[in-house]
């Protein structure tokens, strides 16, 4: 449930660290709250310091940029069709450009598997592990 003023961590390598939601797009239902797989318009609140030379990886965003993003993790439980509920410990997003393409090139963290159902298969394939697809001992990093 991300709405106006909701903050999200950015988990790709586009350079932003923290973004604040300004608007949730395409929401005629859900009262204007965004969930996993929804596009939002956001403001970059904190970004990594941009070096002078252009590095090999993707374009860096600066603090104060207005960008689009897709929500990949929410602290609010999301229901799967079989009755499971998935909840993460933080809210996270991945930055996009206006053509729904990713700005970064790598994703550093788990993403919810519901993204694939909403049509963001490319992000899911870039993520290191899809949620629920590994059998790790609890508490391990």
């Amino acid at each position, binding site marked *: 449930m991300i709405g106006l003023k909701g903050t999200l961590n950015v988990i790709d390598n586009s350079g932003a660290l923290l973004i604040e939601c300004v608007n949730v797009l395409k929401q005629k239902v859900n009262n204007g709250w965004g969930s996993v797989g929804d596009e939002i318009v956001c403001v970059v609140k904190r970004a990594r310091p941009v070096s002078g030379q252009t590095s090999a990886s993707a374009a860096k965003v600066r603090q104060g940029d207005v960008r689009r993003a897709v929500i990949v*993790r929410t602290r609010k*439980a999301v229901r*799967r069709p*079989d*009755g*499971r*509920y*998935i*909840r*993460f*410990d*933080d809210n*996270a997003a991945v930055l996009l450009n206006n053509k729904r393409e990713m700005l970064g090139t790598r994703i550093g*963290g*788990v993403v919810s*598997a519901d993204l694939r159902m909403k049509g963001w298969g490319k992000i899911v394939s870039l993520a*290191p*592990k*899809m*949620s*629920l*697809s*590994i*059998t*790790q*001992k*609890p*508490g*391990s*990093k």
Partner: protein
Amino acid sequence: MFNSFRKCTQRLMSTATQPYPFSSVAMVSAPPPTPALEGLKAGKGLMPYLRQRLLSPEKLELLARFGRRHPERILPGSVLQVTSKHAPTAFTGVLLGIRRRGADTSVLLRNVINRTGVEVQFAVCSPNVKDVKVLMRAGGRGSEGRAGKRMRRAKLFYLRDSPDKMTAISAGMR
């Protein structure tokens, strides 16, 4: 009074094969359970009857392991591995709490993946849930300090705020 009624409906509803007196090979299946018991038609003992008949026997057995009276009941604080049919197949996690609602019983498992906490709530009687394995019972192995103590709560939501207790449980696992 209700217990004896429940026992006699259980016996009536067993579909085990019965021996045929004239041949050891032939198997005669029991007649299908007669649903039209007089008391049921009047509505007596309807809910216990439904509770027995609604789920398959394996699911009933799984439910009983999460109940409160089973001798080997699963306590919150155990580490479970749930295997599901569709989608990502296996999830391991610490059992944070059991929500007991009969057929709607669900369990909450928590794991930390890539430094992010993930909690999944599984509906136990869902056909998607194939198997629930207990990797470590609550209370740890022997007495290992934090991991060895018995959990004194029914819902262990405090584990969300203390990652050190979670690592203590996982250390007790290895």
